[in-house]
């Protein structure tokens, strides 16, 4: 909350933030995610494989790193989000080694997505980033353990038709 009240929240709780020169709105600072249903990280991975077997899927996905994401906050748009992963593995239910894959984005709506969290790991990690919104870009942190989600929607990322450079890079000449 910032100092602009909304129904049910009459006072600021010290989250009025902005970039230089922009008007203030309520923004995230350090967002901490904690869970009571915690398992060791090794066990979390086993649970992923078990969940795949239970759902009779050949594989599940392990997202290790993302470049960012966005969500829509304006009234006319659907309340949906998109996350842009960088490092993604297929984790096979039959015990084959993990396979590095590319070209997938995570999409969804927050409430249905988060209601399908099964449990979390014991490995809280810090994500430091810059969050952009009506009041500009502000530095933010999110702290969360690994999470196992029962069901998630992914989609193919838009691909460029561009060819790689015609000539080899100059260094390869040496």
């Amino acid at each position: 909350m910032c100092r602009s009240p909304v129904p049910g929240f009459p006072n600021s709780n010290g989250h009025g933030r902005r970039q230089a020169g922009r008007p203030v709105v309520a923004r995230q600072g350090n967002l901490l995610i904690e869970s009571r249903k915690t398992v060791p990280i090794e066990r979390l991975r086993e649970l992923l494989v078990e969940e795949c077997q239970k759902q009779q899927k050949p594989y599940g996905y392990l997202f290790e790193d993302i470049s960012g994401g966005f969500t829509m906050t304006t009234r006319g748009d659907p309340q949906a989000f998109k996350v842009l992963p960088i490092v993604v593995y297929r984790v096979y239910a039959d015990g084959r080694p993990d396979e590095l894959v590319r070209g997938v984005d995570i999409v969804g709506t927050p409430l249905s997505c988060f209601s399908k969290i099964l449990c979390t790991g014991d490995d809280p990690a810090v994500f430091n980033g810059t969050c952009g919104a009506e009041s500009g870009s502000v530095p933010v942190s999110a702290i969360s353990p690994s999470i196992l989600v029962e069901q998630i929607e992914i989609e193919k990322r838009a691909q460029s038709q561009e060819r790689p450079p015609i000539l080899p890079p100059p260094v390869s000449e040496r």
Partner: protein
Amino acid sequence: MIPLKHMWWAALPAWFVALSLCCAAGEEAAADDPLLRALAAELERSLNMRLEGLEPPYFIQYVVDDSEARQMSAAWGALASSDRDRARVLSVEVRVGSYQLDNTNFSGGGGQGFSGRARGRGFGRMGGAAPLPLDDDEAAIRHAIWLATDGPYKRAVETLTDKRAFLKERESEERPPDFAPAAPVVQVEPRAAFEMDVPAWEDRLRRLSAVFAEFRGIQDSSVRLTASAGNRILLNSEGSRLRTGAARAVLTITARAQADDGERLADRLVYVARTAAALPDLETLLADARGMAARLVAQAQAPILADYTGPVLFDDVAAPQLFRQLLAAGLAAQPDPVGEGRRRFRAGESLEKSLGKRVLPDSFRVVDDPSQAALGARFLAGHYLFDEEGVPAKRVDLVLEGSLKDLLASRVPSKAKAASNGHGRRSGQAGIGCLFIEAAEGRPQEELKQALIAAARDQGLEFALRVSSLGAAEGGAAEALAAMFGAAGQGRRGAAEGGAGVLADPVRVVKVYVEDGREEPVRGCEFGEVDLKVLKDILAAGDQPVVHNEEGVFGPASSVIAPAVLLEELELYPIEAEPTRKPLIAAPHARAE
């Protein structure tokens, strides 16, 4: 395919001949310069670039602007900014096809919707720009050049395919070639470096900006200094290899005032010199700033000019400004691109149809000569030895005895001009360098004033107008932009830049009374439609040339040098605007203690 290859191989020896014969010292310097070596290596490699089934480039040009700049500003005695800027920007030009028909001069085919594909490809869109590493690291520089060349080539072959298809679908009209060959030039000068006493200039700016606090009528003001120095490197596949130094300093002092009825007024002093050290001394600048402030305060209290039709004397900087705004653009030969998106030129934008005809009185001569570096003690910002396309600057006699004889040309041919005359200024566009307007039988200022009074008397007027400066214009693009969107402009036609048919608003303008020659400032007026034809009716000219330097960021620097001129008849109207009120509280410096 064969003629294409032949053309390239014919070009290669020219490079080596030129290098070995005329510039042994330059070659040595070039060998020491990792940037030049990197450009030469990637240029040679890139000429072999090709997509299957399509042609390799027939022409590649690299231009690197390698510069260091310092920008500082101050207001009301305090430094407001002081930034260093170091940049090395590569511009890549890739041409595919032939000199006769290539990927340029095409503004897009039809049938691709109202935006999108067609739009990005116009003429001028033949390459790209990319920053290069600042360190003299040859491998790192080559890597950046490699990536910066790949995209322009791919776009070039795509555009050429589109253009060929477009031309096939149409009746072929007689078209000039797309590009004119130019003899290779080689000149490698020592690398220029940036030097400036930064703390001393910061202090000068503080002191200069403080003088406006002495004037209660000044509402806002700023003093801005931009100084840069650097090297321009040009290499092309025809064998040209240039490294030339360049330095520039522009000091702009701006003051703003607001009349009681809300009209905003602004005036500025602009000094252009090669280096900051060559700018006028502080005492001179302080006196000039005070003079301008006093004049602007008086102007803000002056009455608004009612409708006026009659003679106008343009003197001081207004004279070269008048010629810049009415004549300069039209002196450039205009290539006529093919394609759906091509636009018609407005009257005054091209004088091609006036070739051989009278555009000025018989006593006038107009010459563009970029090789002139100064006029007496005055620096000419439009001076250069090689144009933006690497073609040596040439003097062009444009108007002789009042008749238009020639046009300025870049390497992009037009119907009137088949080859460059060293005036390629920006992305293939021709433009002025140092434009000299000279009049035989020039008269001293006092005689001109008498001639103005006589002309007004003949027309039965009570007074005539003398205009000494026009809006915006002199100075950098930042100033022009500020004027366009800022206080002086505010959405009215013509207020800022002038342009075809429109003259910028007069800033310094006085009534000269017929009965006793006394002068009274006026304000709040703008010119009616002004046609180039008014220049044919110049009644008299002065005997003192005045320099107007313009330092563009959008376009290269140029100078117009012209004497005062008396025009027989112009129309001026009061500006119809709805100005905002003055600030509710007086400025801190204007409050009574």
